[in-house]
């Protein structure tokens, strides 16, 4: 086993105490990238070779030189007796929506393919200041618009380390796949409707969507600004807590970043679940989708293996001292996807306005007599299918004559979804939950190409995650077991505002309770096939 497969927590501890050099950790990480990642995503990446189809392709930009300088600095500071920080020498990756000063930041789109950020995101600054080593920028769905990472303009797109014929999920697919395959220990992703949790579940890692406002959004290319939550992907709950403790907190550059004090997540993590009230909801053990012709909501139960993993986890938590409360009603979550369709697209289309060929990024070549023609050509060539679909949808439902019917209504339903959570978590209410336990995704990872192209069906991969974004509440996903086909199944714990610590405690307790189970020893196929 390579050092890179160790928890970040342990690596940082050893580096800090001079037991391990940051350079050695970095070399192990780069070695892993060389072994499993294959070629990075590029524009016009060409046809996939057989070899391509067996690799992960997490990266768009590998920043090995920058990483080496950082690692050497960490080691020098350790030798000088300085406190390097809680992420000392830990190799990290960033979803390529995070601005990193002096490094290309593409959003996996042609329109930003030549954009070098002149500043770093607040989160990036905090992570680097904590002693982390930036391994690179990882792939995603174009502008984070998707749930499979297949819509990236940078090809080959990321593949699932557990089965490279399958998607890693999305949009933070590169982050999840990188962490799962040991290409770095931690990654920062973003979650607008499930974009951290669903790929984390698909790749068998831990992912946290923090409370809206817990982590600054400054410097992260926006998708749906009222929904976007930056958060960590990690291989275990403790590492996710470690990363959150570094990035959480107020930011003078983001007025929506909360000033609520940040607790010591690591100190609280092993306090167990004794007395914790954890709920199960039938509304999260089925999917609901509107009939395309009648608009009527049709309910369908999730596959047994997904439900079984969830219920087994409830038993484990109960055995560890939690109280399980069943039949929590979450009726409005059934509307999560339609509401998300409207709100996220209105915000997305507006957020895409700035990509117009005037200031930075791609501009269509040509002699344009007319300004509007330049806009049209640039955006036609620069944006892929998903941004275009979202612009169309977003512009439509926010138009003056439709806004009341769609956008305002969606906002109302969003409040109702939040009210469901408020009722479930109300300390004086009927349920008084500390957390709600659900599956993370309705299915295990699906095959590449199976769903891509059907924008609507793809959206339903977020069915179980999106409600937390509407409500703004935190949600943690962690591996719950494997499917019959040996694919990861993720579980989700959703808590009230700023209850990340509770979620970490419960997730950690589940990890402890299942540490010896056989499925925990199973590694992603790309690692075993590479003899790693």
């Amino acid at each position, binding site marked *: 086993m390579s050092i890179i497969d160790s928890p970040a927590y342990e690596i940082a501890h050893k580096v800090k105490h001079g037991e391990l050099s940051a350079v050695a950790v970095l070399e192990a990480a780069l070695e892993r990238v060389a072994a499993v990642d294959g070629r990075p995503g590029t524009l016009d990446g060409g046809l996939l070779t057989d070899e391509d189809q067996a690799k992960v392709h997490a990266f768009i930009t590998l920043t090995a030189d920058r990483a080496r300088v950082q690692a050497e600095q960490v080691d020098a500071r350790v030798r000088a007796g300085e406190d390097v920080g809680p992420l000392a020498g830990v190799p990290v990756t960033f979803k390529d929506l*995070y601005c990193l000063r002096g490094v290309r930041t593409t959003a996996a789109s042609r329109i930003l393919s030549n954009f070098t950020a002149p500043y770093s995101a607040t989160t990036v600054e905090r992570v680097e200041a904590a002693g982390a080593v930036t391994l690179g920028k990882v792939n995603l769905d174009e502008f984070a618009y998707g749930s499979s990472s297949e819509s990236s303009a940078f090809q080959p797109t990321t593949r699932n380390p557990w089965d490279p014929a399958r998607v890693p999920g999305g949009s933070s697919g590169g982050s999840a796949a990188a962490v799962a395959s040991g290409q770095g220990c931690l990654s920062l992703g973003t979650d607008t409707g499930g974009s951290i949790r669903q790929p984390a579940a698909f790749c068998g890692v831990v992912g946290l969507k923090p409370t809206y406002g817990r982590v600054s959004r400054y410097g992260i290319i926006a998708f749906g600004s009222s929904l976007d939550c930056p958060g960590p992907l990690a291989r275990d709950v403790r590492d996710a807590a470690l990363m959150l403790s570094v990035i959480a907190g107020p930011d*003078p550059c983001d007025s929506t970043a909360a000033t609520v004090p940040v607790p010591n997540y690591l100190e609280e993590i092993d306090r167990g679940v004794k007395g914790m009230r954890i709920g199960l909801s039938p509304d999260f053990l089925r999917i609901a989708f509107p009939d395309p012709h009648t608009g009527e909501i049709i309910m369908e139960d999730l596959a047994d293996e997904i439900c079984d993993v969830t219920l087994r986890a409830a038993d484990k938590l109960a055995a560890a001292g939690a109280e399980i409360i069943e039949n929590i009603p979450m009726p409005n979550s059934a509307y999560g996807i339609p509401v998300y369709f409207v709100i996220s697209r209105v915000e997305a289309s507006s957020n895409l*306005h700035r990509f117009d060929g005037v*200031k*930075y990024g791609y501009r269509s070549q040509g002699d344009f007599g007319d300004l509007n023609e330049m806009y049209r050509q640039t955006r036609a060539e620069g944006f892929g299918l998903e941004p275009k679909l979202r612009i169309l949808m977003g512009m439509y439902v926010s138009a003056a004559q439709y806004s009341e019917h769609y956008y305002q209504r969606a906002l109302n339903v969003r409040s109702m979804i939040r009210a469901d959570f408020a009722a479930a978590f109300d300390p004086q209410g009927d349920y008084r939950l500390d957390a709600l336990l659900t599956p993370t995704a309705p299915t295990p990872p699906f095959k590449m190409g199976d769903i891509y192209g059907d924008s609507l069906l793809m959206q339903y991969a977020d069915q179980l995650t999106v409600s937390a974004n509407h409500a703004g509440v935190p949600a943690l996903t962690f591996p719950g077991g494997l499917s019959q086909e040996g694919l990861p199944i993720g579980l989700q714990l959703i808590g009230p505002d700023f209850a990340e610590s509770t979620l970490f405690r419960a997730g950690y307790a589940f990890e402890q309770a299942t540490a010896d189970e056989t499925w925990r020893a199973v590694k992603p196929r790309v690692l075993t096939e590479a003899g790693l």
Partner: protein
Amino acid sequence: MSGKLKHTPERNKEGPMTEYEAVIGLETHIQLNTITKIFCGCKADSWEDPPNTNICPVCAGLPGVLPVLNEEAVRKGARLAAAMHAEVRLVSYFDRKNYFYPDLPKGFQISQFDQALGNGGYLDVPMPEGYVRRVNITKLHLEEDAGKTKIEGGQRLVDFNRCGVPLVEMVTEPDLRSADEAAQYLIRLRQLLRWLGISEADMEKGHLRCDANVSIRPVGSMYLNPKTEIKNVNSIEAVRAAAVMEIERQIALVEAGRRVESWTLDWDDAHNRLKKMRSKETEADYRYFREPDLLPVVVTAEWRDDIIQHLPELPLERRARFMEAYGLPEYDADILTADRPISEYFEAALAAYGGDPKVLSNWIMNEVLRMQNELGLSADALTLTPKHVAGVIKMVEAGTINVATGKALLVKVQESGTAPEAIVASEGLGQVSDDAALLAVIDGVLAAHPGEVVSYRDGKEGLFGWFMGQVMRETHGKADPGKTRALLQKALKGQ
């Protein structure tokens, strides 16, 4: 000019003469004089800065940036709202106004739409003819300014320096009835903005920008006809000229049996003419929605009440008080409230002087204002204090010095900073009112000019003033004019 316009077209001699009135609403953009921009830390004022040197990732709209609201912009906006008698909303929102233009780096402007900081309001504008026009406000909101573009050498150039400068957009109801009324509104608005200290309100520098919506209708009717929007009018005189021209054009059109179309017109200042920019048949859809990157603007009732309580007495209120409390003519009151420093100067001087306000008004309007204009200083920047002015007038009234000496003395105080009483003492400027001393001077003058004395005595009485001047010259202006006049008359008559 009242609000009514008569027009007798050549071609319509047979029909009844229609009297038209103009219906004008003004959209103003007011640049607030905050130190930094509204959503970032760049300095707000970029006057004479080279293009794109006063920008940062936030105001240049780079990917990933977020706005952070400048509280001072809210405070200044709220002061204006309060001064306009508008409700200051305790909760207001920022919204995105989406459109594409190269000077708008985010592709949307952060503005306020349906729940703006100010709600309602009005300004009562006194017209020179004596009536007061109440101009109601339909919109008063905060927003960020856009940049500037220009075409040069076949290229479109963009300067983002102005992006993010805090603006208040304030729109009136169509309550103005003539070009002159529109001009008066702007004069009073500019005065108010400077009075409150929230904007330099210099139209030439774009601190105060105005678009005018103009239509006409027969006098007495209540409906609104299609309007045209005149843009790019950057002086009060231009607003007046453009509105006059547009009103005449619309009347001529209607009289010719044609329809006024909803055009947007561009005022060409260099050639004093209006140019059609575009037809405006359909309203643009800006797809407004709440700006998710900013929290609602929540102010407490205490904060708002504090703003209202700390508003200064407003210029028009002070103008009315000067007339009422001090019995000043409207003309004087208007001039003495032209700006806040002069009005405060007047009141401070009056407190020190304690005499007839009109006497003081004359001194200030003639002497202090002239000095102020010559030096290019506002009243509060003069070395000559209100107390000095009061001291000089009191010395004149006590007969210690004469009026001419008093006027000269004001200049000396301004130049030296020395109190007027001290200058009078040290330079011996005290008035010569001693009969014997004056007679000695008069005798000397008469002896030195026998020819003029003969002429005077032969009936050329116009020479009296010349003799007065000679005496004054001899006494360096210190002769008491009343006494000199009496003594000189006697001496010339040979008495």
